[in-house]
């Protein structure tokens, strides 16, 4: 699989075929998830309707962690096997992950105001997610900080791997420090403690977020590949003008 998709042209073909059904699935599942979350799931006996923020907040938090993991694995693959698409995947995923992290922080803050009476508390979970957000920003800034693009990619890969130490801290912060933020209620030993009437909408939303990530990732990766192609053509253009074929061998006209 790793080698099969290493060919950018093959990746463009496969992702191009997958993209339309993926987009449709994303829209359908997200719409269904939002409907279930907003209209079907019951209001909480303590939190009232504010509990519905949870359906946006929790999957965003999961995705924030998952996307960073994706970036880290892709970076490792890029460093070890010099896989040409892994770097592109990692860089394409970073702004999406940063956006999920921001959504998580903002919705958490909106929920915290009526529930905890404060927009922000310096509890371990929040602080570590904020650090994750800065890790995303640092990664994006580092990748774009070099004139030599491949140098930026490799520096970014090393940084992504260093930042992995933060992931277990975020995951277990609520258990280690036992602070304000609720502890895990879905992925825990002995089964979820959350009621199934809320668990199902939550899981549908999570699947929707996952599909959204895949769709956006494919779009961004395809854009990045096209951009590289365009730049290569631009760089090659002066020489080609000198050689002066009006069209490529397959008949596509050469841009002048």
């Amino acid at each position, binding site marked *: 699989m790793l080698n099969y998709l290493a060919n950018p042209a093959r990746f463009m073909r496969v992702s191009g075929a997958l993209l339309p059904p993926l987009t449709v699935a994303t829209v359908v599942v997200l719409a269904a998830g939002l409907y279930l979350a907003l209209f079907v799931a019951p209001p909480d006996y303590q939190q009232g309707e504010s509990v519905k923020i949870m359906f946006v907040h929790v999957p965003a938090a999961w995705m924030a962690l998952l996307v960073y993991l994706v970036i880290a694995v892709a970076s490792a693959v890029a*460093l070890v096997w010099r896989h040409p698409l892994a770097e592109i995947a990692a860089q394409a995923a970073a702004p999406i992950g940063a956006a999920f992290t921001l959504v998580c922080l903002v919705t958490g803050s909106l929920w915290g105001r009526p529930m905890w009476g404060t927009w922000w508390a310096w509890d371990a979970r929040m*602080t570590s997610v904020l*650090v994750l957000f*800065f*890790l995303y*920003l*640092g990664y994006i*800034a*580092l990748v774009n*900080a*070099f*004139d*030599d693009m491949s*140098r*930026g990619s*490799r*520096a970014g890969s*090393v*940084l992504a*791997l*260093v*930042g992995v130490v*933060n992931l277990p801290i975020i995951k277990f912060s609520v258990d280690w420090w036992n602070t304000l933020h609720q502890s895990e209620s879905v992925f825990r030993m002995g089964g979820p403690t959350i009621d199934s009437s809320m668990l199902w909408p939550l899981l549908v939303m999570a699947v929707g977020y996952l599909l959204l990530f895949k769709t956006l990732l494919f779009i961004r990766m395809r854009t990045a590949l096209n951009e590289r192609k365009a730049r290569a053509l631009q760089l090659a253009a002066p020489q080609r003008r000198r050689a002066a074929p009006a069209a490529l061998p397959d008949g596509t006209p050469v841009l002048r």
Partner: protein
Amino acid sequence: MLQYLGLFRRELLLAFRQGGEIGLALGFFVLAVVLFPLGVGPEAEMLRRIGPGIIWVAALLAAVLSLDRLFAGDHLDGGLDLLVLSAMPLEGAVIVKSAAHWVTTGLPLAVISPFLGLLMDMDKPSILILMAGLVAGTPALSLLGAIAAALTLGSRRPGVLSSLIVLPLYLPVLIFGAGAVEAGATGAGARSHLLLLGALSLAALPLAPLATAAALRQTLD
């Protein structure tokens, strides 16, 4: 072993002879701390409470400011290529350079911190805990900082970029460092905080140089 000592000696000589680089970091450290009583007002009660945090934050910033000294000079004059090509493992060279960086920034900061503690009206046990914390925690700052310094070599704005990268990684050191003084003052005992600080430094000692060396290698190929 001899080559490690030679490298260590060279780093120290460069730091001492290249005019006041240690002094610059120290001066920044002191000035940054002095700004706070002037900014928030000189009430002894408040200064005593926020003093340790301020001193730790200033130490973090001073460490970040001196990071470019680690590799930038060697990168420019080609010394870095020689280090990579030499028989010495690059990870070992990185440890030696980080150690020299610590001796010329972290250690002096810890040595003058008692005076800053006095300026902040801290009592004697708190100052001792602050000093012990700085000694235990600043090696982690140098080791982690080396990663950022190596990653940003040759980038467009290495200074700003390395602070953006490294400050999130410094947060645990800051939390346990400032927390140690607080725990000591409230009677909870600073021992566990200080042990955690030492643990951070010891964990960074073998791990951070691996990342730094990987980052340095990819600047050259």
